[in-house]
C-alpha cells in the first residue's frame, strides 16, 4: 500500500480517535482492510501505534497528577495477561472470525456510548477490605471545580478480572479498548471520570506492548508500514486534542456514534460474508 495513503488514513484515524476518546485503532483497522490489507496485518500495525498515542497522552496526564499509578499498576497485572492471550488467539484464528469480533466490539461500544446517561460521579461510600488493602485511593486537583477531589476505589476483586477481558480484546483486535477500561473504572470501581480516563491511558500503553511483542515474535510487525502509521496517528491525535477544546462534546459524540455504527455493521457484514 502506498506510503502517502497510509499516512493520510492514519492522520484521520488519530484525529477521530482523539476527539472521541476511543483511540485511533477503531477507525484505522476498518479503513486499512477496506483498502485491501489483511486484517491480521492491520491489527499488528495498529497495536504498535497504540503504544505511541497512549504514552504521549499519558505523559501529560501523569505530570498533571490526575492519573492513579497504584490503580494502574494493579490493573495492568490483568490486562497484560489478557493482551498476550488475545494476540495469540488472533494469530491462530481465521480472518472472518476477526471481522465478526471487531464488528461486535464496535457495536458494543456504540451501545455503551448510546445508553450512557449523564450521571454525576458519586464517591464510594464504603470501601471493601480488598480495595483498602490495595490502597486504591487518591486525590487530584480539579481545575473547573477549583478544589481538590478525594476519592476511593472499590470492588477491585471484580474490576481486576474484568480488566483481563479488556486486555484480551485489546490484544485480539489491536485496539486500546480504552472505552471498555473506562467503563470498568467508572461503573465497577467508582473512580471519578477524569481519573478513569487518564489511568486507562496509562494502562493501554503497557497492554499494547504485551500484544505487540506477540505480533513481533510472529514476524508481523512490518517497519515499512508501521512508520507512516505511527507518525500519522501521533500527528492526527495531536491535532484532534487541539480541536477538541473548541468543539462541543455533544457534537463530537453525535458524529462518533454514527461512525461507530456504520463501521461496526460494515465489519460484521464482511465477516459473515467471508464465513459463508
Amino acid at each position, binding site marked *: 500500500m502506498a506510503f502517502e495513503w497510509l499516512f493520510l488514513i492514519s492522520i484521520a484515524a488519530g484525529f477521530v480517535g482523539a476527539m472521541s476518546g476511543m483511540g485511533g485503532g477503531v477507525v484505522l483497522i476498518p479503513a486499512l482492510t477496506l483498502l485491501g490489507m489483511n486484517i491480521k496485518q492491520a491489527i499488528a500495525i495498529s497495536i504498535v501505534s497504540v503504544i505511541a498515542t497512549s504514552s504521549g497522552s499519558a*505523559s501529560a496526564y501523569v505530570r498533571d497528577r490526575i492519573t492513579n499509578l497504584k490503580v494502574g499498576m494493579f490493573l495492568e497485572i490483568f490486562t497484560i495477561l489478557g493482551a498476550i492471550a488475545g494476540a495469540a488467539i488472533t494469530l491462530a484464528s481465521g480472518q472472518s472470525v476477526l471481522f465478526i469480533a471487531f464488528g461486535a466490539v464496535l457495536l458494543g461500544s456504540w451501545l455503551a456510548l448510546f445508553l450512557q446517561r449523564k450521571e454525576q460521579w458519586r464517591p464510594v461510600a464504603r470501601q471493601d477490605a480488598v480495595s483498602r488493602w490495595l490502597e486504591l485511593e487518591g486525590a487530584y486537583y480539579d481545575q473547573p471545580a477549583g478544589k481538590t477531589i478525594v476519592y476511593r476505589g472499590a470492588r477491585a476483586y471484580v474490576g481486576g478480572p474484568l480488566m483481563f477481558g479488556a486486555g484480551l480484546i485489546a490484544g485480539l483486535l489491536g485496539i486500546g479498548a480504552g472505552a471498555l477500561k473506562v467503563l470498568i473504572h467508572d461503573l465497577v470501581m467508582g473512580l471519578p471520570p477524569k481519573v478513569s480516563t487518564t489511568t486507562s491511558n496509562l494502562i493501554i500503553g503497557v497492554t499494547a506492548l504485551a500484544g505487540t511483542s506477540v505480533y513481533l515474535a510472529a514476524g508481523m*510487525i512490518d517497519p*515499512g508500514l508501521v512508520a507512516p502509521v505511527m507518525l500519522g496517528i501521533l500527528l492526527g491525535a495531536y491535532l484532534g486534542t487541539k480541536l477538541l477544546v473548541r468543539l462541543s462534546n455533544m457534537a463530537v459524540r453525535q458524529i462518533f456514534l454514527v461512525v461507530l455504527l456504520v463501521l461496526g455493521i460494515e465489519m460484521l457484514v464482511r465477516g459473515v460474508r467471508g464465513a459463508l
Partner: protein
Amino acid sequence: MNGPAEDLTVRDARAKEAMMEGFIGYVLLAGVAVSAVLVIVGLAWHWVRTGHLGADYTIPRMNLFEFIVADVRQVVSGPFRPRLLISLGIAALMLTPYVRVLASMIFFALVERNWKYSLFTGFVLAVLTYSLFLR
C-alpha cells in the same frame, strides 16, 4: 486531629509521589519523542537517497531483544542506513512502557518501600520481559 509529626509524614509522602509522577511523565514523553524523531529522520533520509517515501522492508521473526541486538550490531559494524534508524525508532517505542514499569518498580521498592506494589509491579515486569523474549 493530625499532629504536626503526622502532617510531616503526609507531606513527605505527597512529595515523593509528585517526584515519581514527574519522572514517569518524562520517561513516557522522552520515549515517544525519541522514537518519532528516529522514524522521521530515517524516512527523510530514505527519501533523499531513493526518491521514494515508503521504506519497504520487513523484519524476520524475532523478539524485541533479538531485534535490538541485530540493530546494535548493524550500528557497530555496517554502514549506517535509513532503515536502521526506523528500526531503532520502533524499538525505542516498544521500550517506552517497559522502562516506565521498570522505573515504577524501582520507585515502589527503594523510595516508597511499599512491598505490596513492588511485588505487583515486579510481576508486570516479569510478564512483559517474558513476552519480549517470546519465540
